[in-house]
């Protein structure tokens, strides 16, 4: 990240934030703020104009902010949210799933040239796909080849292993899972009012923390979000036990691309999820 450009962008962000808060277009702004550690930032809720200066913009702004709007679905005033490429796709995801109203949000577009996060390596949308105001100049996107090569590289390598090896790998991973549901809480595609795992449905999802139940939970969540995942990598980042969750959900996306044509979630806000529609020309393997 060349620093001079980003520092200028941070200043412009603060100045814009102050103006928005002063003239009342937004109730409050969700951005990133400093924490005790220099190499970490945390979500910041700036409500008063003077708090705008606490907003930061550096390579450690990695938290996804879009899903906080779910906690305030019926705001009096618009909610300002700083959106990088992935956050803007998360907003599209939530709007497409009818969970938040686009009019309730004021999106501050932040062109992002990559953060201290492994997922930024193959990022295909550095510039926000939807915003109300753009801070600074858009950055140069990854080339088409680089982004698409990077996208499923991990999955293709994993598929080369034999079925038993793959089972052993996943069994080990799900042994570690402590069912804290952090992956569900951060995921913009997981927007159900009451998650099936929290409900008292005996035959459906057991509560015991053993390998079989964790496997069923992991696979079910992968299947639930598979056709709507925006590949932001947050689930993997927040998992306390370090499970490679993206490697599970991206498998679905890879299959969808192979079977139903290229497909990227959250880029256009209208695109219906693949499992919500059908096509007469779909391949037929079950004859």
């Amino acid at each position: 990240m060349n620093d001079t450009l980003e520092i200028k962008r941070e200043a412009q962000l603060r100045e814009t934030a102050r103006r928005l808060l002063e003239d009342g277009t937004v109730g409050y702004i969700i951005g990133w703020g400093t924490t005790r550690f220099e190499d970490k930032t945390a979500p910041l809720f700036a409500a008063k104009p003077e708090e705008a200066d606490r907003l930061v913009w550096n390579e450690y702004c990695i938290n996804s902010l879009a899903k906080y709007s779910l906690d305030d679905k019926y705001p009096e005033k618009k909610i300002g949210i700083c959106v990088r490429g992935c956050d803007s796709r998360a907003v599209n995801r939530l709007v497409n799933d009818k969970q938040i109203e686009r009019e309730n949000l004021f999106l501050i577009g932040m062109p992002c040239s990559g953060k201290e996060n492994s997922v930024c390596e193959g990022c295909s949308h550095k510039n926000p796909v939807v915003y109300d105001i753009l801070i600074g100049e858009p950055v140069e996107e990854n080339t088409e080849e680089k982004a698409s090569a990077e996208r499923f590289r991990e999955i293709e390598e994993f598929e080369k292993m034999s079925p038993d090896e793959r089972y052993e790998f996943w069994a080990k991973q799900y042994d570690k899972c402590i069912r804290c549901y952090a992956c569900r809480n951060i995921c913009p595609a997981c927007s159900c009012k009451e998650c099936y795992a929290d409900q008292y449905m005996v035959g459906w999802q057991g509560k015991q923390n053993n390998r079989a139940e964790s496997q069923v939970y992991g696979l079910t969540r992968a299947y639930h979000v598979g056709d709507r995942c925006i590949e932001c990598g947050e689930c993997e980042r927040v998992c306390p036990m370090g499970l490679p969750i993206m490697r599970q959900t991206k498998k679905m996306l890879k299959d969808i691309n192979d079977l139903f044509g290229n497909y990227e979630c959250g880029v256009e806000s209208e695109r219906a999820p693949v499992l919500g529609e059908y096509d007469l020309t779909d391949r037929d393997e079950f004859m």
Partner: protein
Amino acid sequence: MSVEKNWEPKIIAFTCNWCTYTGADLAGLNRMKYPENVHLVRVPCSSRVNPQFILRAFQKGCDGVMVCGCHPGDCHYATGNYFTRRRFMLMKRLLEYNGIDPQRFQARWISGSEAAKFRDTMTQVTAQIRELGPNSKFQEKWYQEGGPENE
């Protein structure tokens, strides 16, 4: 894992009431014979089968799971099996990706008049599962009998 001496494969088949279930009844009427290992669960349409039922079936101890419905275009509810096709093409690959042998989960279109096809499918699937042996993946039972300790 010692193979139990008189192990019999346990196969569950979610069958759509208007086509495959009718086909099974027709196979019965014609006294066609097929192995006893397959148990049919009657559902109104193959699109009623939630992919999560498959995971539960494996977890509870099934060795093979099938989803059978009408041929695309013949669905009594017009578009039901188009959704089934998409859902289970993806779920089948996800299961294989997680190490389940491809033959343990199969989906088939069997119409109400294809009694012979029903019998042949059931015989073929039972033979394939018997050859694969008992399924130990995803099994709750494995964990209840000591699980990681006896690995």
